[in-house]
C-alpha cells in the first residue's frame, strides 16, 4: 500500500478503455473530448478522499498522521496539543500554508514547515489567539498522490468546549474517519457516545487503539472496549496500533516491525473501505463520460460517412449541422431557458436557506435568553455554552446541506430543460447517428441509492464526499464544502467568540441587583455572538451559492461547446468531401470506416466490460 495501492481491476478496465478512447478522440482532432477522458482517468487513478483523524485530546492523533505518512508532518510533543485543523494533501513541492482571519479578511501565508507548531499547538497559539482557520500542508508522498487528504483535528474535550460539535459537523463530508483512543484506558462514556454518532455520519469509521507498545494490558483494554461498543449496539473491533514501532520500522527498514506496528492493517482497511469505493465511484463516472464521448465521435463519423457515400446527402448533412449549431449557440447565450431558470432557482434557494438559517438562529437565541433566567450554577452556564455551540453547528450544517439538496434539484431541472430543448437535435442516421443528450450529463446516470453517506441525515446528503460526488456539475462545491463548513465552524467567531461570550461572566453573586446586571450582560453577549455568527455564515452561504451558479454555467458551457464542435467538424467534413477527387474520397472512406470500427470495438468493450448502465 505504501508502494502505491493497486487500482481495483474493474477500475483498471475503465482506465484502459478510457485511455484508448482518449487516443482515438485525439487522433480525430477532438482534443476537448480527449481532455475530458484524461481528467476522468486521473480521477479514477487518484480519487480524492478525505480521511479525518479524530479523538480526545492527547491520544496520539498527530503521531498517527505522521506514522501513516512516515514523515514528521504534524508537530508532536508530550505537552503541546494540536488546536487547529490541519489538512495534509499531495503536492510536488513541500509547502505549508496558514489560513487565518484578520478582521473579516482571510489571509493565507506560506510558512516554513518547521515553524508549524507556532501556529497549530496550544502552546504556540493558545486558544487559537492568532485566529488560524486551518493549515494546509502539501508534500510529495505516494499515499497522498493517490488522492488521500488526511485531516488532523484538534482533540475534542480540551478545556475550550464545543470543538467536538464542530468535528461532528465536519464528518458528513469525510470519506473515512479514524477514531483514536489510546490503550492506557478503556473508552469513556463520551468516547462511546461520539463513536455512536460518528458511525451514523460517516460511512467508514476505524477505531485505532494506539500506544500498544507502552501498555502491557492492551489486549484486555481492546476486549473491554469491544464489549462496551457491543453493549452500545455499535459493534466495532479496535485496530491495535503503535506509532513508536512504525517509526522504528522506518528507521531500521524492518518489515517485521512494521507489521507489528499494525499500520499495514490500517492502510489495508483504508484501501478497501475508503479508496476502493471512491475509485469505483470515479470509474462509474468515467464510464458515463465515455458514453458521451462515444456518442459524439460516432455522430460525427456517421455524418461524414453519409456525406462520403452519398453525394446528394452532403448538403443535407451540412444544413442539419448548421441548424444544430445555431440552436446550440442560443443555448449557450444568456437568453437560454436554463440560464434564466438557474438564476431564478439559485435566488430562491438563497433566500430560503438564509431565511431558515436566520430563523434557526433566532430560535436558538430566544431559547438561550429564556434559560439564562433559570441558571443556577456556573456549571449550568457552561452547559449552556456547549448547547449553544452544538446548536449553532447544527444550524450551519443544516444550511449547507440545504444548499446541497437544492443544487441537486436544480441540476435535475437543468438536465431536463436542456434535454427538452435539444430533443429533436438532428442526427445523421446510422448506428451512431443520434446523440443521446441525457448522456451528456454523466451524473444523471448515477443511481442515487449508490451514493454514499447521510444515513443520519436522511436523504439530505447526496454523497458529496471528496471530489467524488455523483454530481459532475458540482465538482467545485464538493471541494468547497468540507472546507467551507469546517472552516466556518472552527473559525472565529464560533469557537473564538464563544470564549468572549461566555468567559468572564460571574452569574452567581450574592447581590440580586448585580445578578440581574450580569444576566443582562450575558444576554447581550449571546446576542452579539449570534449576530457575528449570522454575519459570517450568511457570507459563507452566499459565496457557496455564487460558486454553485458559476459551476453550473461553466460545466454546461463546456458540454455545449463540445457539441458545437461535433457539429462544426461534421459540417466541414461534408464540405471537404465535396472537394475530394474519387481516389481521395475512397481513401477517406476507408479511414472513416476504420475509425468507426475502432469505436465499435471500444464501445463493445465498454458494454461487455462494465455492463449496461
Amino acid at each position, binding site marked *: 500500500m505504501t508502494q502505491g495501492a493497486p487500482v481495483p481491476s474493474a477500475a483498471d478496465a475503465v482506465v484502459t478503455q478510457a485511455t484508448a478512447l482518449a487516443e482515438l478522440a485525439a487522433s480525430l482532432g477532438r482534443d476537448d473530448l480527449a481532455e475530458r477522458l484524461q481528467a476522468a482517468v486521473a480521477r479514477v487513478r487518484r480519487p480524492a478522499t478525505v480521511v479525518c483523524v479524530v479523538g*480526545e*485530546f*492527547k491520544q496520539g492523533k498527530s503521531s498517527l498522521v505522521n506514522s501513516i505518512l512516515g514523515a514528521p508532518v504534524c508537530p508532536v510533543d*508530550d*505537552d503541546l*496539543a494540536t488546536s487547529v485543523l490541519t489538512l495534509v494533501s499531495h503536492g510536488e513541492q513541500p509547502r505549508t500554508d496558514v489560513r487565518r482571519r484578520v478582521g473579516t479578511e482571510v489571509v493565507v501565508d506560506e510558512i516554513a514547515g518547521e515553524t508549524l507548531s507556532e501556529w497549530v499547538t496550544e*502552546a504556540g497559539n493558545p486558544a487559537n489567539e492568532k485566529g488560524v482557520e486551518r493549515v494546509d500542508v502539501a508534500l510529495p508522498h505516494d499515499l497522498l498522490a493517490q488522492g488521500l487528504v488526511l485531516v488532523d483535528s484538534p482533540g475534542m*474535550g*480540551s*478545556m475550550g*468546549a464545543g470543538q467536538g460539535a464542530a468535528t461532528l459537523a465536519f464528518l458528513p463530508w469525510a470519506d473515512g474517519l479514524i477514531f483514536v483512543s489510546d490503550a*492506557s*484506558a*478503556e*473508552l*469513556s*462514556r*463520551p468516547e*462511546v457516545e461520539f463513536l455512536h454518532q460518528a458511525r451514523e455520519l460517516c460511512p467508514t469509521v476505524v477505531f485505532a487503539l494506539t*500506544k*500498544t*507498545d*507502552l*501498555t*502491557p*494490558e*492492551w489486549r*484486555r*483494554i481492546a476486549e*473491554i472496549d469491544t464489549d*462496551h461498543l457491543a453493549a452500545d449496539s455499535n459493534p466495532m473491533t479496535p485496530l491495535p496500533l*503503535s506509532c*513508536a*514501532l512504525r517509526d*522504528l520500522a522506518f528507521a531500521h527498514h524492518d518489515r517485521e*516491525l512494521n507489521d*507489528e506496528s499494525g499500520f499495514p492493517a490500517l492502510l489495508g482497511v483504508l484501501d478497501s473501505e475508503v479508496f476502493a469505493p471512491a475509485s469505483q465511484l470515479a470509474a462509474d463516472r468515467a464510464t458515463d463520460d465515455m458514453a458521451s464521448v462515444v456518442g459524439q465521435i460516432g455522430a460525427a463519423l456517421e455524418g461524414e460517412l453519409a456525406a462520403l457515400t452519398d453525394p446528394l446527402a452532403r448538403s443535407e448533412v451540412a444544413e442539419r449541422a448548421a441548424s444544430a449549431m445555431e440552436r446550440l449557440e442560443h443555448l449557450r447565450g444568456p437568453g437560454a431557458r436554463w440560464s434564466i431558470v438557474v438564476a431564478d432557482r439559485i435566488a430562491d434557494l438563497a433566500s430560503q436557506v438564509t431565511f431558515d438559517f436566520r430563523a434557526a438562529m433566532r430560535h436558538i437565541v430566544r431559547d438561550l435568553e429564556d434559560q439564562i433566567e433559570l441558571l443556577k*450554577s*456556573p*456549571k449550568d452556564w*457552561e452547559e449552556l455554552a456547549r448547547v449553544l455551540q452544538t446548536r449553532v453547528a447544527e444550524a450551519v450544517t443544516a444550511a449547507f446541506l440545504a444548499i446541497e439538496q437544492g443544487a441537486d434539484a436544480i441540476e435535475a431541472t437543468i438536465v431536463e430543460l436542456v434535454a427538452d430543448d435539444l430533443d429533436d437535435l438532428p442526427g445523421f442516421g446510422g448506428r451512431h447517428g443520434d446523440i443521446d443528450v441525457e448522456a451528456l450529463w454523466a451524473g444523471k446516470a448515477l443511481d442515487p441509492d449508490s451514493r454514499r453517506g447521510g444515513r443520519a441525515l436522511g436523504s439530505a446528503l447526496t454523497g458529496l464526499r471528496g471530489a467524488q460526488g455523483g454530481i459532475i456539475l458540482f465538482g467545485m462545491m464538493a471541494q468547497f464544502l468540507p472546507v467551507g463548513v469546517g472552516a466556518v465552524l472552527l473559525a472565529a467567531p464560533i469557537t473564538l467568540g464563544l470564549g468572549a461570550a461566555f468567559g468572564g461572566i*460571574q452569574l452567581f453573586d*450574592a*447581590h440580586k441587583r*448585580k445578578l440581574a446586571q450580569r444576566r443582562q450582560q450575558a444576554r447581550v453577549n449571546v446576542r452579539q455572538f449570534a449576530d457575528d455568527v449570522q454575519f459570517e455564515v450568511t457570507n459563507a452561504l452566499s459565496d457557496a451559492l455564487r460558486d454553485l451558479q458559476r459551476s453550473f454555467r461553466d460545466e454546461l458551457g463546456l458540454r455545449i461547446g463540445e457539441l458545437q464542435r461535433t457539429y462544426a467538424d461534421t459540417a466541414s467534413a461534408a464540405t471537404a468531401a465535396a472537394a475530394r477527387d474519387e481516389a481521395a474520397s475512397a481513401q477517406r472512406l476507408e479511414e472513416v470506416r476504420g475509425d468507426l470500427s475502432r469505436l465499435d470495438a471500444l464501445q463493445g468493450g465498454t458494454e461487455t466490460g462494465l455492463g449496461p448502465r
Partner: protein
Amino acid sequence: MTMGEAMIGDDARALCDLAARLTEGTPFAVTVGELRSRLDEPLRVAIAGRVKAGKSTLLNALVGERLAPTDAGECTKVVTWYRNGIGYDVQAILRDGGSRSLPFGRSDGRLSIDLGDLATAAIERLEVTWPSKALEQVTLIDTPGLASLDDENSMRTRDLLAMGEDRPSDADAVIYLMRHLHRRDAEFLGGFLDRSVAASSPVNALGVLSRADEIGACRLDAMESARRIAARYQADPDVRALCTAIVPFAGLIAEAGLTLREEEATALRTLAATSAEVLERMLWSVDRFCEPGSSAVTVELRRSLLLRLGLFGLRLTITALQAGPTSTATDLAALLVASSGLDDLRAVIAHHFLPRAQVLQARSTLAGLRSLAKELEATQPAAAREIGTEVERVEATTAAFSQLRVAHLVLSGEVSFEVEERAELERLMRPGARVADRLALDPSTAGDALVQAALEGAGRWRERAASPLGDSALREACETMARSYEAAYLELAGPPT
C-alpha cells in the same frame, strides 16, 4: 500555627456540644455525634478522578502497601475508606444503615476482600481499618472513576463528594488525579468547588498529573516532561482557580518501588546482563519484552515485572543496572521511589493540607451543622435558629475562616488580584509558617523591621479596602489581608500585658 487555627477546632467542638444538647434524644443526635467525633479524627482526603486515572495506585503508594485493588479495567466500584486502627478489619456499611464484617486476606502482597453474596448496589461504602503510620494523619477515601461507563459508579463518587447537592461533603479535601487536563476534569473540579462558598475552595483541592511516566511515552526523560507540563498547568489561571498545586506523579513506579521484592531485583539484574542489542529491541514494546526465547528470565516473570514496573520502570531500572550491576533491591527501590514524584506529592500534601487540617475539618463540621439546622427547622425551630446563629457567628469571627474564604475568592478568580498580590496572599496566609516567612522577609530580619513590614502591609491593604471602586468581595478580601498583617503584628508584639 496561628492562634485562630488553634482555636477553630475548639470553637467547632463547642458548637457540636451545643447541638448535642439541643438534639438530645432525637434521631439527629447520631448525626451530631458523628460530626463531633470527625473533629478528632485524621483529615479525610478523597482521591478522585476519571476512570483509570490511577487513583487506587496513588492510594497504595501513599500508604506503602497494596491495599486498593488495581487492574487494567475499571475496578474500584465501591467507595472505600482506608483508616488507621489498632487491628485489621473490613466493614461494609450498607445502604439500609446496617453494616457487616467482611472476610479478607492477602495474597502476593495484595489485599483481597470477599464481598460474598453482597451486591455492590447494596453497599454504601467499605471501611478498611489498617494499622499504618501513613494513615495516622489522613484517612484516605478511594472513589470510583467519574465519567465511567457504569453510571452507578460515577454516581457514587458524586454522592461522596456531595456534588451539586446542598449537603456537606464526607471528605474534607480532595486529591484530584488527571492525566492531561481534560474538560471533564475541569468540570468535575468546578463541581466539587462550587457548592456554597463557605464549604468549597480551591484551597482544599490538590491536582495530580497522574501516570506521569506515560505522558512522556515511557522514555527515560518522561518525568521531566511531566514536570514541565505540571508547571505549565500550575501557571494557568483557569487551573489555579480549581486547585492550588499540581504535581506530576507516576503511581505505578512509586508502588513498585515501595514493594519491590528481592526476586524481582534478581530478574532485573539477569535482564540487564542481556546483550545490549537484544535488550534494546526487547524494550521497544511490551509485546517484544514478553517474547519467548529472548531472555533467560521466564516469560511469566517478565510479564509480572512488566505489570509491576511498566515500560518506564523497566527502562529506568535496567539502565541503572547496566551502569551499576551491583545495585541491590534496596537501591533499585530507592531509585524507583525517587523517580516517581512521591516525595514531591507527600511534601505538597504536608504543605497544603496538613497544616490546615483543623480549619478544613472545622469547615466540614460547620457545613454539617448548618444543614442540620435546616433539617431541624420543621421540628425544633428554636434549636435550628440557635445552631444557625452560632455557626454564622463562628464563621464570621474566626480569622482562619475569613482567610480561607479570601483565599478561595482570589484563587477561584472571583476577586481578581495581580500575580504578585496573589503570591503575597498565599505567603501571608500560609498555615503554620513563621512570621518572617509570611512577610516575605529573611528569617534573620530584626524584630523592628518585621513590625515595620507588618504595619506597612496592614496600612496598604486598609487603604485599598477603603477605595470606593471595588465591590464588596474585593473589599472583604482587602480587609482580610489587612487583618492578617495585623495578626502578624500582634504576634510580634507578644501577648498584651
